[in-house]
């Protein structure tokens, strides 16, 4: 039994003919880092490892026009031996260095201008607190005018897909957040394949992106692919239910799944622990590939490694959401008021909400997008292209004379030869047709 959601399992699935090549282009591997391998099993990988920033606003690097950095050591042997100028002559220090250390800031500046986008899907039975959690996470109320359906209306309801978009701006950074809601999931009496509309939706977004990316005009491609799916598991059961397993197995190769234990305030700590262990076991047992947190660099400090370990050990997160603010110990906190006490949402001892929020927004948002882009989308694209290839070879009656796979372009002579043969084939077929006609006429 693997304790916690450990290192990523090998990704090779049977029946897939692709082979993932190692990223040759990633030549700057940093300090003794290992390559990030997603599809093949193997070594753990370095990845962007920023710390979760403290709540007190720390000075953040701002996008500013390029300024040469202060003196740094140069490491190649090709450099001139430049004498360090006297400290008061700052102009000279400017001249010592080439100045491309401002490159990250240049990239930074463009991203700030462009803004980011992120698509989050929430799935689970109704009444598990999905909307409340979204409200608590992003502090926006997307469901103001929602009307909850009664039981009779729900009988005939099918799973819908609802999209809400909100633009958030903080400290000059724009985020276009799209929340994809799935009301009706798991609510019917017969829930067979109730995840089908959801998989269709995810595939549709991939297909749309594939078309856009392969088209002629690639200027303003909208990225609507689902980057992360928060799946709510009911705390009242004993681990995963069959519909949970079915949903996760249908979606784990298409989307990053982050399982959550909803409404965790109805469980005591020991029950939460047991439930988490149970869920982790079942996830392993059924072979579900949930989103794995990337490994830490070996040269990160202990603090950071400790935080990372805690994060991995507390998955799946037990969360509580609240859209009301109550008074506790003289402070106004977001929480739920019970006669026996106040549950504080942002208290780490009460629930894992803060961990979830930090993970989702402050440390792993980009990684989630990367995994969607590099793994799930590439899988889809490879699959799609192979389907097209096999369809084309099936349709042509003889063996296809034209090389269909995008091999390196054959030289002109082979192409000419192929075209000649094609012509011949066509002429022969026409002759055959004519002969058949003549025979029929006779």
């Amino acid at each position, binding site marked *: 039994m693997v304790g916690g959601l450990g290192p990523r399992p090998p990704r090779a699935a049977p029946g897939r003919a*692709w082979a993932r090549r190692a990223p040759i282009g990633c030549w700057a591997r940093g300090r003794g880092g290992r390559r990030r391998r997603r599809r093949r099993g193997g070594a753990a990988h370095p990845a962007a490892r920023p710390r979760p920033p403290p709540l007190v606003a720390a000075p953040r690097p701002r996008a500013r026009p390029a300024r040469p950095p202060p003196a740094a050591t140069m490491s190649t042997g090709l450099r001139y031996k*430049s004498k360090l100028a006297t400290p008061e002559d700052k102009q000279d220090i400017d001249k010592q260095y080439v100045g*491309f250390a401002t490159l990250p800031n240049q990239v930074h500046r463009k991203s700030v201008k462009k803004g980011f986008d992120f698509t989050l899907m929430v799935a689970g039975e109704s009444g598990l607190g999905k909307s409340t959690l979204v409200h608590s996470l992003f502090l926006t109320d997307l469901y103001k005018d929602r009307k909850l359906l009664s039981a009779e209306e729900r009988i005939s309801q099918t799973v819908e897909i609802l999209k809400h978009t909100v*633009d958030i*701006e*903080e400290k000059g950074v724009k985020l276009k957040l799209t929340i994809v809601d799935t009301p009706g999931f798991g609510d019917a009496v017969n829930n067979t394949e109730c995840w089908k509309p959801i998989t269709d939706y995810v595939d549709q977004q991939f297909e749309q992106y594939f078309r856009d990316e392969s088209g002629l005009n690639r200027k303003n491609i909208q990225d609507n692919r689902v980057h992360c799916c928060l799946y709510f598991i009911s705390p009242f059961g004993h681990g995963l239910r069959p519909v949970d397993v079915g949903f996760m197995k249908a979606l784990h190769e298409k989307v990053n799944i982050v399982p959550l234990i909803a409404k965790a305030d109805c469980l005591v700590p020991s029950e939460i622990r047991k439930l988490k262990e149970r869920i982790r076991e079942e996830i392993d047992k059924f072979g579900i590939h949930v989103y794995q947190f990337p490994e830490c660099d070996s040269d990160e400090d202990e603090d950071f490694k400790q935080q990372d370990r805690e994060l991995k050990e507390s998955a799946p997160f037990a969360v509580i959401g609240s859209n009301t603010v109550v008074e506790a110990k003289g402070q106004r906190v977001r929480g739920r008021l019970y006669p026996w006490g106040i549950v504080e949402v942002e208290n780490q001892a009460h629930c894992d909400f803060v961990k979830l929020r930090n993970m989702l927004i402050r440390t792993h948002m980009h990684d989630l997008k990367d995994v969607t882009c590099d793994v799930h989308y590439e899988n889809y694209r490879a699959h799609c292209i192979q389907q097209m290839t096999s369809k084309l070879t099936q349709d042509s009656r003889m063996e296809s004379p034209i090389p269909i796979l995008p091999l390196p372009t054959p030289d002109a002579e082979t192409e000419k030869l192929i075209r000649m043969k094609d012509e011949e084939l066509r002429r022969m077929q026409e002759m055959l047709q004519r002969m058949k006609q003549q025979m029929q006429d006779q």
Partner: protein
Amino acid sequence: MDPLRRSPSPCLSSRPSSPSTPPCEMLGPVGIEAVLDQLKIKAMKMGFEFNIMVVGQSGLGKSTMVNTLFKSKVWKSNPPGLGVPPPQTLQLHSVTHVIEEKGVKLKLTVTDTPGFGDQINNDNCWDPILGYINEQYEQYLQEEILITRQRHIPDTRVHCCVYFVPPTGHCLRPLDIEFLQRLCRTVNVVPVIARADSLTMEEREAFRHRIQQNLRTHCIDVYPQMCFDEDINDRILNSKLRDRIPFAVVGADQEHLVNGRCVLGRKTKWGIIEVENMAHCEFPLLRDLLIRSHLQDLKDITHNVHYENYRVIRLNESHLLPRGPGWVNLAPASPGQLTTPRTFKVCRGAHDDSDDEF
């Protein structure tokens, strides 16, 4: 869909709410600016790439200029001996170095073009250069349409071409005009006046003026292109640059002592020409443009405009179109088609409805 909300103050960042709901108090910001940190760290880990090409007649100080720009002996500047004949055809030499500064790694590739414009008959001397540039685009395109592609496609496309104009003092020569016309459609071109220490300040200004006029008359759009300015700040910044293009530069790789400081320069009997002194030459402007402020922009325009133009041409040329979306079998590139100057130009950001997908 909620309207765009702006946070009023940077430190408290309390979010204003819509009038119909009760105010939702924030106890701590959401923290989305941390995404920028994530991006930055990822960019630093991956390292950056930059490919620059220098074009000009021999003896104009191209190799020296590259050495000065990157403060390293990228090229061993050795003048050809008397007995060595100049190369008969234009050859392209590429040299790659990894330089690091303050934790940022840059993989720099410099392509030199010895033999450009040195023959008696210089017809079509730009063909090998255009061929090389298009070859890099083709390589990238082939990588991009593979079924299983690499996560990070190695980028060998030429991001910037620095063209050295000899300091005649009159105006652009026919060779310069022909070359620039063809090249500005395929790559970002930055013309510079080479060996500007043979021109006085007034001569420089007059020469620059005439060159700018020539460029305008022949519709040569050099970097920074006006049509790609994204907003008003960019336009102001770039207009200042456009006034000073072409920069009058002097390259030097020897250091001399001036007033107790060690500077790069050329020592003559009548004084020392300091390379990094704005009063003497405009080398700092060139360096700032290429490296400190516009490097990423150069790469972006190459990727979003020039490469996309190339891709559209290639996709339109291929005759075999599959029935499904997006994936094509490319017809082999015929060299003749791509080197003749085309008259269309795709503007960044504009919706090009006529080029919709098949």
